[in-house]
């Protein structure tokens, strides 16, 4: 091994230089620490999109298929119910307010049709929870729209709380549950017993009176605003219909526009699948083509305020929405 003689001067550092370097490194750590603690929760605030997509398939509540959720005359009675998610120490048993066996666990709520039950829920456990009301005797789907707080994909973190309301339209037992999969099985379910007292929810017998209505699906030139007979803003657009419960209604619709349309009377205008009284003409999946027309005859059911819309998604929001009142 050839030895290479090197006789450069030997440089050694000084305390001042080392302190300067330590100060720089400390400064970086403090700045990093500031950002780190400042944004501590932000970094874990968003669930991954993949989780939301696949999660939807399970507990999705689009199919609000329970027919009876039509509008109902409010009795004005408000029932406030405070529920807190709690867990046993070994996480095996979950419940509302108190563990099963103790007094006050999963309190049963009694209400009449038309009462407004306001749920004030808070997550007092360590795990994640979410809230919802359903008619199903088991499972965590088919939640009644508007009754949910958070969802299984974006649940309430420990300590978080939320408010939701539920107006029963039909007598029977409903269940308030934690919509995180598995939690209902572990005990997070309580009953809401709804008695039929109050407004006659049942549809009146056929009165023999019949009405005929015809609507034209019309569109603005830029297809931005749509309407029945006339564009919203002009008078005569989306005429209001007032009929008695039990009347026989025949609706004929003509597609006077250039795109596709379909017709249906719904209880919730934002939810194009909540069609009532079998009042559909064509459907979003095979709508009326331009120039085509269709008609349907049906009995007006339980009294309440309903809406007639074009059931092609998005058209109701663009203006194809009128009120349909049954006395």
């Amino acid at each position, binding site marked *: 091994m050839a030895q290479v003689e090197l006789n450069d001067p030997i440089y050694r550092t000084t305390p001042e230089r*080392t302190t300067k*370097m330590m100060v720089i490194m400390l400064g970086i750590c403090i700045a990093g620490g500031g950002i*780190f603690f400042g944004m501590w929760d932000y970094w874990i605030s968003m669930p*991954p999109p993949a989780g939301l997509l696949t999660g939807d398939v399970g507990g999705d509540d689009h199919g609000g298929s329970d027919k009876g959720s039509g509008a109902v005359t409010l009795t004005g009675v408000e029932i406030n119910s405070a529920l807190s998610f709690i867990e046993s120490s070994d996480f095996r048993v979950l419940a509302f307010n108190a563990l099963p066996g103790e007094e006050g666990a999963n309190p049963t709520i009694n209400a009449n049709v038309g009462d407004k039950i306001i749920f004030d829920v808070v997550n007092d456990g360590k795990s994640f929870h979410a809230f919802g009301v359903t008619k199903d005797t088991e499972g965590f789907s088919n939640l009644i729209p508007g009754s949910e707080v958070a969802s299984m994909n974006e649940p309430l973190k420990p300590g978080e709380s939320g408010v939701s309301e539920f107006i029963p339209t039909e007598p029977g037992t409903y269940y308030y549950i934690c919509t995180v999969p598995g939690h209902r099985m572990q005990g997070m379910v309580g009953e809401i017993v709804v008695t039929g007292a109050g407004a006659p929810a049942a549809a009146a017998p056929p009165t023999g009176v019949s009405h005929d209505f015809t609507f034209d699906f019309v569109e603005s030139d830029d297809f931005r605003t749509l309407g029945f007979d006339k564009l919203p803003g002009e008078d005569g657009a989306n005429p209001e219909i007032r009929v008695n419960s039990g009347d026989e209604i025949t609706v004929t619709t003509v597609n006077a526009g250039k795109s596709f349309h379909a017709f249906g009377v719904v209880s919730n205008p934002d939810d194009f699948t909540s069609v009532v009284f079998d009042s559909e003409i064509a459907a979003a999946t095979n709508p009326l083509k331009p120039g085509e027309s269709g008609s349907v005859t049906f009995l007006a059911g339980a009294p309440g305020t309903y809406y007639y819309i074009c059931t092609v998604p998005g058209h109701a929001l663009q203006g194809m929405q009128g009120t349909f009142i049954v006395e």
Partner: protein
Amino acid sequence: MVLELQKPRPIWQIMFSTHHTDVGLLYLITSLAFMFMGGALALLLRVELFSPGVQIIADSMTYNRIFTVHGTTLIFLFILPSASAFGNYLVPIMVRFKDMAYPKLNAVAFWMIPPAGALIWLGFADFTWYAYPTYSVVSAPGPAADMWIFGLKILGVSSILGSINFVVTIMKCKHPDLPLSKMPLLAWAYLTSSLITLVAVPTFAAALLMLLTDRLGASGFFNPAMGGDPIAYQHLFWFTFHPEVYILVIPAIGFMYEIFPRFSRKPIFSHGSGVAAFTLLTIVGFASWAHHMYATGMSFTEKTVFMVGTLAAVPASAMHTFNFLATMWGGRIKFATPIMWAVGGIALFFSAGAGGVVNSAMPLDFITHDSYWVVGHFHLFVMGTILFGTVGFVYYFFPYVTGRMYNEAMGKIHFILSFVGTVLVFFTQHILGLFGMPRRIYDYPAIPEWVQMNIIISIGAFIIGIGMAIFLGNLVWSAAKGKPADMDDPFGLGGKYYFPYQAKNPSH
């Protein structure tokens, strides 16, 4: 960045230099900083696990985030950069070339480490350093996970660039009359670990990209709801990461190949056996990745194949151990701090290997998989062999860089505390694993044996913590005020030592 007195260069000139000594020392400072940060997280975990119930960490999400960043930091931000640190500083000298083959690429590879470290530390992801789907795809929250993925992507590219640089420097820029067989074994260590990196790490880069697109819902590689298979990720991950653990251990063995002959005052027992062992490990290292996945329901034949692949890698390590012991035989050993760390490292290297053989025996994996036995086993490697070898080499390298001598007594106390602590912590973890305590748990039921062992482990961890504090004090104080070292023979061993001698303050 050689720390000088008369003509101190401004900081920016050091930070943006492309000279292999400057980049080497930037790597060293960054990796030692991350070592202390990762170690601090380890102490936090041990305080929490001292006994059942909540000690200082409020909830399990914080605990999960801490152990994830503990693992990621110490592997990717301490061990790999510290290997590159000494490699950048010494490989050009060992092959007698003026600098690395691609100096700018060298600086780029370094300057990827701090931003990646920032990404990992600011995000503080919570899905373990494995980032196994489907948890990492469907349920791991927030930008933290995506920041971790980007951070790891950048680190993967940085280590690939570093390896390219090493391989080209060693193979192409070697001095013409220095045959490969005469090259020091530390240079051989860098050649072999760089070759493994070039073959192994790209697979992980692909797995990371697939993980990211899965998280965005754009693809379904590992998401069963979209037809993917999470086990596919595990294959990609471990195809990179079992060879990666060899990448981590080979430079540490290379450091020992420098320290043992130097302090035993006699040449290495057999240069050929060292080269053969390194090359054997490079090839056989790729045949054993799925022994990490015995529990995912593999078939009997598949498990047998990977068991045989794992056992085939053991003779290579056995040859290294034999080489070191045979070198000490007949020497006149001066027990300064570096050789103490090296001997401690080899003793723990043997017990780590023995634990590994037990792990790879198929039926025993059902006792030990993902239990504290495994935690003890791999910590004996990363702490017992790699950290001991690296810290021993930092002590050995200290006089050549700073021109001053570290405090010998403090160095020895640091070794004794660390060795006792390591044995206390990681041997007890083996027994704790046999009693069935699962890995990565924030809290555990008050089973008497578990509680006693966790107390012993936490006390051992605090002992290591004290040792490391002494190390930090020793480094900083001695760099500034240490006794000037005799640059010809800082350890008083007699005789010239051929290559670090040249490393003393080379001008550009």
